[in-house]
Structure formats: C-alpha cells, structure tokens
C-alpha cells in the first residue's frame, strides 16, 4: 500500500531517523557519571552509558567499539557529544580511545564534539563544557525538519521476551506480518536469539538465500546447543525460564517454534554480528544472546529506529510493574507489544500495542498486523512510546565471549 508513510529525519549519511536527539555518549566507564549529570541539565538529549570497564580480549573490545560507534551515529541522532577520561585513555587497538570513537562517529557527517576530563581539568569543568556543546547542538538540531518517507525507509528490529503461548499464536506472527510488509516495501528488518531457534532451526535455515549462510547458521545453533549441554543441566533449568513455564511453555523446542514467528516469512539475507549494521535491505538474523538488556540496545546499534519488544506478559505479579527494558537503547524508543489479551488489559499503561484480539477471535492476524503497521508509522512520525516518556538509562550488556582477563 503506497500510502504507508511517515515523517522522519534524513541524515547526512543517507539513513532515516524517527527522532532527532542530541546524544551524550560515554566513551569509558569512568565517564558514566559525567554523562548522566550533564544530561540532567539538557532538554532534547539522550545519553548512553559505557558498558565496559573490565579488561577483555580483542574480539570483545571489537564488540564494544562497534556498539558505541553505531549508537553514536544512529539514524535517530542529529549530533553527538563524546565524553571520556582523556582523548587517548583506555584500549587503542580496536579504536576504543575516546578520540577514535569521536572520529568514527564524525565520519557519518554528524556534528561531533569530544569532551574529556583530562583536557577540561576536572569532572565539573567537563560537565560544563558538555552542557555548553550540547545546548548549541540542540538548537541546531531543532531546525532540522521532518520529511515524508515510506514504510520501506524504516529499519526495525524485534526481540521477544517474557514469552507465553500467546506470543506464538498472536504477538509474534503479528510482528511477522509487519516484517513481511516492511521487507516487501524495501525496508530493513532484524530478528535474533540463537538459543531460541533450537528446535526450530530447520525451518529458519530454509529461508537463508545462500547455502554457505545456511551452513553457518546451523553451525551457530549447534555451538549454542553444545554450550548449553556443557553446563551438565537440562537446558530447561534456564530456558524456557520459570516465567515461560508458569504460563504453559513446556520445552525449549516449543518456545523456539513460537519465537521464530516474529521474523515473518520472507527470505533471510544473512547473519550480522551483535550491533552490526546490515550491509543491505531485507530481513537479517542478528547473532547475540537473548538477554533483553543486550539485544534491545544491540538492535538499536544495528540501526533499528524502533526496537520492538514482543512480550507475552501473562506472568507479571503486579498490574503496573517496571518493564525489563526502559531506555537501554537510549537513542531508539522501545515499543512494547503483546498477544496476550489478559496481559494487555492489565498492563495497558505499559504496552504500546496489543493483539490479544486474535486469541479472542475478534480480529484476524492480518487485521491486527495492519493495525500494528499504522501504530508503528505513527510512532515513527513522533508519537511517544510508553517507555519513551521515562528518563532513565541502563548500560547495555555486551555479549562477551570472554574470558575476563
């Protein structure tokens, strides 16, 4: 449908954002305090805390570098202030020096300013400098106008969690419908969770477009299962987790078969690393572990302008609980949906979308899918998500291979 459009922001690198934030990015663990304090004084900003302090191997430092750079040049970000201890503090070999992060983000054409405690002569001076720089950026960014774009200009990502049986029959396939329409319109879609394809990998594998990737995908899943077995436990000790089981999911295979429905039905172009931007349009599988504090920000780093958290949610002990991921993606509004009619009624103040109607027989999957597309386009044009109204930052968890050295 050609009238699927939204109003977004065109960036100098050609990406299309749905928000127009100035970002305060912490380049190292020491600067998290500086960043969160400075951000408190500023309208129009978001802040991302650094996830790294411990000495970690090169392949893990590479994950952190890719994550921070890709968050810093996210399509929803107009300009970035990078804060660090000093311009050349920390690990240099993977480009983790604050000055290197700033240069890589600036290569996207965005205004970037580096502020360090070392150069400013102390934390209070650094906060002052960051506030000054960010205020000028907020004013400059505020003159950027939204322009009309089509559904196919969006990049979306999905992670499912707190799953229950209605995730499989309503919540996930309705997101799958959105993904099919997005891919058909020329857009980009990301899904993930290699633990939660175990038992359903034969179905996912058929959808990769080239045989080499099929082999790689199956070997990733095999490694994941071997890792699970190496614990000496039945994987059911952890996955499905107690919440999934309470709601009626009995085995990992059952959970996986429901989880993959969120990817829709279109061909899968390839596998991207955690936080890596896909090299082309279409549907992509992102490698990573299922923790939401890792995957939601990872989807944002990969370029998702709205990460969707597709939840079961039947198990919450309260009608108004704190949801698992509030702002860990910082730069991209987290969108919560559910296919459980009871959860939607109980937790309407936290969910942006519900399709329990499918379970109740009041709406078809396609009708609910079209309703989801309208809602996503509205959020893309500026409508706030429920979590976006909260100002709170959590550092993202990185999927380190380790060891911690």
């Amino acid at each position, binding site marked *: 449908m050609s009238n699927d459009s939204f109003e977004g922001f065109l960036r100098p690198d050609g990406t299309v954002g749905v928000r127009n934030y100035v970002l305060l990015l912490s380049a190292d663990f020491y600067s998290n305090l500086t960043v969160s304090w400075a951000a408190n004084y500023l309208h129009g900003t978001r802040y991302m805390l650094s996830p790294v302090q411990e000495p970690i191997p090169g392949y893990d430092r590479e994950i952190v570098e890719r994550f921070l750079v890709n968050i810093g040049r996210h399509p929803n970000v107009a300009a970035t202030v990078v804060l660090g201890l000093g311009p050349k503090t920390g690990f240099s070999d993977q480009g983790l020096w604050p000055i290197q992060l700033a240069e890589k983000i600036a290569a996207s054409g965005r205004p970037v300013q580096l502020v360090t405690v070392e150069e400013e002569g102390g934390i209070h001076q650094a906060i002052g400098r960051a506030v000054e720089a960010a205020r000028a950026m907020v004013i400059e960014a505020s003159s950027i106008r939204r322009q009309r774009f089509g559904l196919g200009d969006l990049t979306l990502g999905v992670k499912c969690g707190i799953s229950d049986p*209605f995730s499989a*029959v309503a919540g996930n396939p309705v997101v799958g419908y959105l993904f099919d329409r997005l891919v058909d319109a020329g857009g980009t879609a990301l899904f993930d969770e290699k633990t939660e394809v175990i038992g359903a990998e034969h179905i996912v594998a058929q959808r990769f477009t080239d045989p080499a990737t099929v082999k790689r995908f199956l070997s990733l899943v095999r490694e994941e299962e071997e890792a699970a077995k190496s614990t000496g436990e*039945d*994987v059911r000790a952890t996955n499905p987790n107690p919440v999934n089981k309470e709601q*009626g999911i009995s*085995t990992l295979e*059952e959970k996986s*078969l429901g989880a993959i429905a969120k990817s829709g039905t279109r061909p899968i172009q390839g596998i991207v690393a955690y936080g890596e931007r896909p090299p082309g349009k279409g549907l992509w599988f992102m490698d990573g572990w299922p923790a939401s504090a890792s995957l939601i920000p990872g989807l944002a780093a990969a370029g998702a302008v709205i990460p969707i958290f597709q939840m079961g949610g039947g198990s919450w002990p309260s009608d108004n609980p704190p949801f698992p991921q509030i702002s860990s993606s910082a730069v991209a509004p987290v969108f919560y949906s559910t296919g459980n009619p009871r959860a939607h009624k109980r937790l309407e103040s936290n969910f942006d979308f519900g399709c329990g109607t499918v379970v109740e027989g009041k709406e078809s999957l396609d009708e609910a899918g079209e309703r989801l597309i309208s809602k996503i386009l509205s959020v893309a044009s500026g409508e706030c998500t429920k979590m976006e109204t909260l100002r709170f930052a959590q550092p993202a968890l990185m999927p380190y291979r380790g060891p911690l050295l």
Partner: protein
Amino acid sequence: MVKRAMIINDKDTVAIVVDQIDIQADDMVIAEGRGRSVQLTAKQAVPFGHKVALVDIPAGAKIYKYGEVIGVASKQIQAGEHVHVHNIEGARGRGDLVDKEGLIR
C-alpha cells in the same frame, strides 16, 4: 461448562486452552482450528494458555504443536489431560543426559 481450546496445525496432538479449565475434571472442551473440531472431556484443571491433549499419547511418543515436534511424552497421556513439564520432556539441549566424555547416557 463448555471451554474453548485452539488447534494450530492439522498434525497437532495438543491444543491451547483459551478458556481456563478450573474444575478438577469433566469440563467439556471444544478444541477448534484449521477446519478441525475435537470434543474432549477435561481430565483435570488446565490453566489459561496451557496445553490439553487432543488424543491419547503413548509414553515415548512425539508431541506435535505448530505441526512440529515440541518434545516427547515422558508417560502415557490421555486425551483431555493437561500436557506440561510433568509429562513432556524436551529432546534438545539436554546437558543432563551427557556424560563426561560428551556421550549421551
């Protein structure tokens, strides 16, 4: 009372309970979907969203949901029974079945 359950695929041997089965037994359950309609007598309470057996399933038999195998019956299951962790085992990620040499026990 008549309670509803949802059949997802033609091959399935379990259905999802949409109306909670509260009583101990004898609730009439109508499971429908994919052009199939199965009438069952509930053997026990089954919570909202949990699975009810559509047919008798012998111990060791594969259990189908979404038209795919979700596990194996760890004991004999009668049609109308609650199917969950007490009578279904997963076949994947079973580190508990692997000995020190990495072989299945």
